[in-house]
Structure formats: C-alpha cells, structure tokens
C-alpha cells in the first residue's frame, strides 16, 4: 500500500536541481511525480520513480544524500470538493499531514494525491475505514 519516495538534499544555488534530474534522465529513469520544498538556504527534492532502488543507488554514487520515505497514495474525485472530502477523513482520523502533493497522472476522472504521514500504516487503516480509496503500489507503478 505504501509508496516509496526518494528525497534529496539540495543546496540553494543555480544548477542544484538540474544535476540530479539530468543524471536520472541520462540513465533513462522516468520520474512519475515530484515536488520541491524550499527553505531559505536549501531545498528538498522529492521524487517518485518506478525503479526507486536503482535510482537511489545512482544518486548516492554521485554524492547525493538520499532518503527513502513511505508515502500513502489516495484517489480523489476530480471535482470541486474532492480534496476537502479526503481532508475531512484525515481530520476525523486525527492524522497529521507532514506534506502532500499531486500525481501528474489521472485515472479516468480521479486524481491521485500522495501524502506523507508520521505513521503511514495507521493512516492507511484509518483512511480506509473512512471509505477513502488508498491505491496499491502495484496498481500505481504499473500504469504507464
């Protein structure tokens, strides 16, 4: 159920983002989705890739600090109020969202969001109880 995310430490300076991205491109890794968090002096690049283990190895060999985190992917109706509904469930379950971002791909009229919770297992359980469709990793990564 959990989805692996790679996070990379980036310094806040020109070229910091393009280096890892070019590296992955050259090795033919397809980035399924990504997000960037930025602070004053540094940033964090978060990536979801199909072949995350190999990508991690490549990045580490090239001197990046990489961390793997478990994310939870959920389906959201692509219509007004879709996200609000999910967040209702999150709130009612007493879950704390560290951060979230959207998937670039869509399934029919559903969008996909990825969430980072402190306790992903508990989050999955609670969300399912509230009728949220948590997407299995295999389903997601099998899409092209």
């Amino acid at each position: 159920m959990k989805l692996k995310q790679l996070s990379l430490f980036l310094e806040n300076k020109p070229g910091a983002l393009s280096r890892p991205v070019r590296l992955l491109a050259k090795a033919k890794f397809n980035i399924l989705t990504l997000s960037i968090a930025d602070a004053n002096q540094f940033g964090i690049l978060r990536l979801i890739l199909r072949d995350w283990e190999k990508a991690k190895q490549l990045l580490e060999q090239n001197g990046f600090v990489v961390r793997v985190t478990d994310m939870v992917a959920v389906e959201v109706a692509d219509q007004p109020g879709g996200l609000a509904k999910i967040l209702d469930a999150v709130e009612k379950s007493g879950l704390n969202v560290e951060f979230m971002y959207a998937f670039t791909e869509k399934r029919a009229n559903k969008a996909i969001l990825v969430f980072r919770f402190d306790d992903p297992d508990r989050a999955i359980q609670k969300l399912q109880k509230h009728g949220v469709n948590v997407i299995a990793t295999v389903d997601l990564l099998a899409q092209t």
Partner: protein
Amino acid sequence: MKKKVSPPFHPVSAPDFLPLDQLHQLQLQRLQVMVQRAYDHVALFRQRLTERHLTPADIRSLDDVAKLPFTVKTDLRDTYPYGLFASPMKDIVRLHASTGTTGKPIVVAYTREDIAVWENVMMRSFAACGLHAGDVIQNAYGYGLFTGGLGAHYGGESLGATVIPISGGNTQRQLMVMKDFGSTAICCTPSYFLHIIEQAPEMGVKLKELPLRAGIFGAEPWTESMRQRIQAESGLKAYDIYGLSEIIGPGVAMECLCQAGPHIFEDWFYPEIIDPQTGQVLADGEEGELVLTTLGKQAMPMIRYRTRDITSLTREPCDCGRTLRRIKRIGRRSDDMFIIRGVNVYPSQIETALLKVECTLPHYQILLTRDKGLDEVEVQVEVTKEVFGDTVGALEKVQAQICHSIETLTGLRMKVRLVQPQTIQRSEGKAKRVLDQRKM
C-alpha cells in the same frame, strides 16, 4: 573497574621508564652540552645570553632553563635559511622545510646523530602504541620537505616493522593498499583518515574487517570526540602523536596504549608551559603555551621554542607506568585562533560543537567575511545521510541545534549553512578549517 594496560614492553621503550632522578640527571647533562654548543655557534643565541648577562656556566640545574631566552618562529624566518645552524654544512646530512603560510618557509637541519635521535623517538612512538616487527605500517604522511613522511618512515623501519611509503593522497590507492597489503597501522592526519573512512564504502572496503588496528594521527589539532568517531567507524584505535619540524618533526610526544594524552620524550625534549601573555612558567596542570627545548639537537639546537600550541602538562602516573610527563591533547593553536566581534574562537570549539549534535560529521569549514565593517562567520557543514530527514522542519532543526551548540561553546551566534556532501574540499595533509575572506 579500572582497566590496567600491561602489554609486553618493547626493549626500545626502556628510556620511557627511567626513574625521575636518573631522567633529570640525563636532562641536565644534555642541556648543558647543548647550551654550550648553541652559545659557541649560534650568533643570535650568544647575543641574547650576553644581553641577559648570562653564560652557559649559569645553567646549573633544570630550573635554570627559565632564565634562558625564548626562541620564536620569526627567529627562524629572520635567520632564513641557515642562521640558526650550530653545525657546519659538512656535518649536516638532511634539511627539511615547513611550508610557510606567510612568506618564507622555515628550514630545519639534522646531523647524522640528530637523525638517529629522531629515529629513536619515532621508534619509541610506534612501540608505545603496541607496534613491533611484523606490523605493516602504511605511512600516509607526505614524503618530501614535510617532516612527517620521512620521520615516520625511519622510525618504522628501525623498529623492524614493514613500512609502506605510500605518502599522502590518492585515497583509492590508500584503500586498495590497506586491503591488499594487510596494513596493521596507518599514519596520517586525523582529517585525512576521516576522508578515507568516508570513501571506503564506495570502494567496497569494510575497514572493520581489515587487520588495521592502530592509527597514528597528528600534524593538526583534533578533539576527543573526533577520536571516538574515528574509532567507532573504523574499528582501529586512534593514537595522538605530537611533533613539530622546529623541534625535530613527529615524535616529540606520543600516546601509549592508555590513550590518555601524549607522553613527551623528556629525555630528548624538555617541556614547559608558560602564560603566553607574560612568559611566566606555569605549574603542571595549568593550561598555557607549550615551550620546548631540545636536549640533543646538534645541527639546530632549539632553546625554549614557543610552539603556539595550547595545552597543559601532567605528572600524574599513567597506567602504562611511563615516567614521562603527558601533555593534554592539543585541541588548539594560538595561531589558528580567529577573533570575531572581539571574541577569541578556535576551530576546535566549532568541531566539538558539531560533534555534540547527533549524527553530524565534522566536515566543516569556517568562512569569515566582513560586510560594512561587521565581521560575519558562516559555518558550512556537510549534510550526512543520518541527519537528513525528508522534511524542511527536520533540517531546520539540525541547523538550529548546530547553531545552539556553537553558541553554547563560543558565546557567539554564527550563521550555519548546510551544504551538499563532498563539497567541502578534503585535504590530504592538514585540514584547512578557516577561510578568512575579510579584507583588512
């Protein structure tokens, strides 16, 4: 429970255990011969004694050392290159030079007998940390004008150990040799060894599984926390060796298996601790500047040489039974110190502060800048896998912890910048910790 260390002592270590009265007698004899020699052959020294209305005959006890004038680094520069030599060139068999960070280098000279003394103290240094014939010493100190390489080389060979004269640098080759040749000991700077530790996984080398058991680290100030880190990550025992070219090179003092601070080879080097401001001799246990007098040097006798190293001396008996006094690890040098907003700061304080924050590695650099007359310090610290959380908050927390730790130790708020791993230049010799870009 107190751990007693009683290894079989190597016969070369015998002088380390001299009863104090015999040691003092030997020191005085050697001192008198050397003062006479310097007086006869070194114009600067003779002139300084004459100014103080002293002659070599006034040195009747070890306490009289305090009457002698100090020698400072600029004396070596002012008399560059050969002005302090007490032997004719035909007796001098070796010259070394230190790379001067400011202006001209300093030159030091050795007669054949001086080389023998150096060999002796280096041999005793290796023996003190348990090395003997059969050990394989990977000597990664630089060979050349720097005294580190050849000093360790001769000492290792005399001990009967196998010396690999690999010199500094080329980390991949260092790791290959370490693994393939089965090195049991390595000599280099602590910061360079840290770099080796870091590179090992990439080369597929598991340091803990190698026969390597002793690291003889010196040539730059380091901290106890750094030792703990090195030992935990590499499985070897890290020993502190102390020395300086002006006195002889490495081998002025060396830690024994107890790792309780370097023992000074007092039969050849007479130590004092002084108040750097007043020049007054301080008692054992008090912290001040280390001053050394060579007791057997022929080519270049050094009398009361001010090392700029801040430490203290202790006569407290060491568990190893050596009668030699120990110095406290040298964590700082008075010339590494930088002054920021009127506060004296040593790089070692920053290092200690960093090591106090969990999981940070001491790969750091201190950048000094001046903006509109105001001094700014930026401490750049490399992010490691261990500290990198995937939230901005986690990283900002690390940043704040480092900031706080530095402020606690120095009383100053410094800017902390987290940088990508491997971006701070690794040195193969002495680490360059402070980049002063202030325009004075």
